[in-house]
Structure formats: structure tokens, C-alpha cells
């Protein structure tokens, strides 16, 4: 059993990964506005945490324009899904031990 993943365990990043892995791998991901409402983070804070997850290879970021508006979409990568599954298994193992 792997230990605690400190990248994922941070509260905002945990909510991000929970939301993104709730979608099927073939889904297009969630946009920045939706993630902001799900995590309760500010724009700057959310952007920093998404960048952190992207540096770890846990998420993929796609930027596009819808009309004249920029749209950022974030999707969990395969590595991110595996890391999140390990993290959840670790949390469950802690509860099982007590």
C-alpha cells in the first residue's frame, strides 16, 4: 500500500482531483468556472493548484476560445487517476486499521 500523496491531500487539490476523476476518462473535463464553484477557491488560488497538479502530471490543461471568451478546461490524466485511486485506497486502509 502506498503512503499519503501530499500533492493530492492538500484540500483544494483533493477537491479538484475528486471532481475530475468523477468524470469518465473519455469526458472532455471540467472548465475553470465549474471547478471554481466546486472547490470554493479564488481565481489565483485555483490556477496555482491546477498548475501544481499539471507539473506532477496529474491533470491536462486545454485552453481554447469559445467565441471571444477564453475557456480553460482541465482533465485528469491517466497518472492522476491512478494516483487518486491509490490515495483513496490509503485513506480507506487507515480507517480499516482502527
Amino acid at each position: 500500500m502506498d503512503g499519503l500523496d501530499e500533492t493530492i491531500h492538500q484540500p483544494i487539490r483533493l477537491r479538484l482531483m475528486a471532481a475530475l476523476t468523477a468524470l469518465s476518462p473519455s469526458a472532455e473535463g471540467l472548465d475553470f468556472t465549474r471547478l471554481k464553484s466546486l472547490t470554493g477557491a479564488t481565481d489565483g488560488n485555483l490556477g496555482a493548484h491546477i498548475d501544481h497538479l499539471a507539473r506532477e502530471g496529474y491533470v491536462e490543461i486545454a485552453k481554447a476560445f469559445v467565441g471571444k471568451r477564453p475557456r480553460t478546461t482541465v482533465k485528469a490524466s491517466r497518472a492522476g487517476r491512478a494516483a487518486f485511486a491509490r490515495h483513496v485506497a490509503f485513506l480507506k486502509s487507515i480507517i480499516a486499521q482502527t
Partner: protein
Amino acid sequence: MTISSQEAGATLAEIDGIVARVKQSRLYRLTGGLLILWGAIVVAADVIGFVWPRWTVWTWAAANALGAAASFAMLRAGADVPPRLPWRFLAAFAVFVAFGLLWSVGFGRFGPRELDAFWPTLFLFGYALAGLWFGAAFAALGLGLSGLVLSGYLWSGEWFTLWLAAVNGGGFILCGLWMRRA
């Protein structure tokens, strides 16, 4: 870094909460699109039925066929993976239609006004039931619009068909727009 079992439990509960919100949001977004589609169909069919009452039956037959085909196309486009034919949904739809036909054409002695009230409230009853599983918005939609349809049946006089276009079709569109933003 170590964490206690209480903290682990709280973290898992938070994950469950986020996952539930994402799934409900996806459901509301897809349903919102369908409600807008059916709202537009209801408005068009009721207006046509008001202007040319003799064509009401054929108008609704065409409207239902168009709506069913468009709904399936939207479900295919909106799903993460291409859906198989939704047998449970189709079976539930068939049961509602069979029940409706049994009473509206078979045993019941409904006039045109009663028929106009019966069919929308029958399907709105289905929405109210769906609310028990899929979220309070469905129950509010079913019960709220049923109340408006019945009030029109009782008090809207000869404008009942247009009343239905406004409150049933318009209500679907407004609820759909709200669901897409929720």
C-alpha cells in the same frame, strides 16, 4: 505526514460529496437541454393546436416523434460514452403512454379540455417521481407545473391551450435554463 482515522474518514466523506455534486451537475446539464427542447416543442404544438384545433392529434403525434428523435440524438451527443438504447427509459415511457391511453381513450370519458390537462399532468407526475431519485429540482418542476396546469384548467377559460403553451412549454424552458446553470 500522518493522519488519523477521523481525518481520513472526513476526507473520504468530502470526496463523496464532491463526486455527488459533479454527477448531479452533469445530470442537470443534460436534462436542462432536454427540457429546453421539449419546452419549445410544447409551445409550438400548443400554439398550432390553438390556431388549428382540428390538427391537434396529428400535431402532437408529429411533435412527440420529433422530440423523441431529437432527445436520443442529444443523449448520444452529451454522453461520455455512446449510450445503448435506453430500454428502461423507453419502458417507463411506454407504461406512462399505455396508462394514459387506457384512461383517456378507453375507460375515461374525457372531453378535449380534460385531455389537454390530463397528458401534461401525467408526465409531470413522472418528473415529480423522478425527483425522489435524481434531485429536488425534478420534484419542484413536476409539482409546480402540475399546479399551474390545473389552475389553468379551472380558471383560464377558452385560453387554456395558450395557457398550456406558456406555463407548460415556457416552464420547461425556464427550468431547463436554470438546470444548465445549476
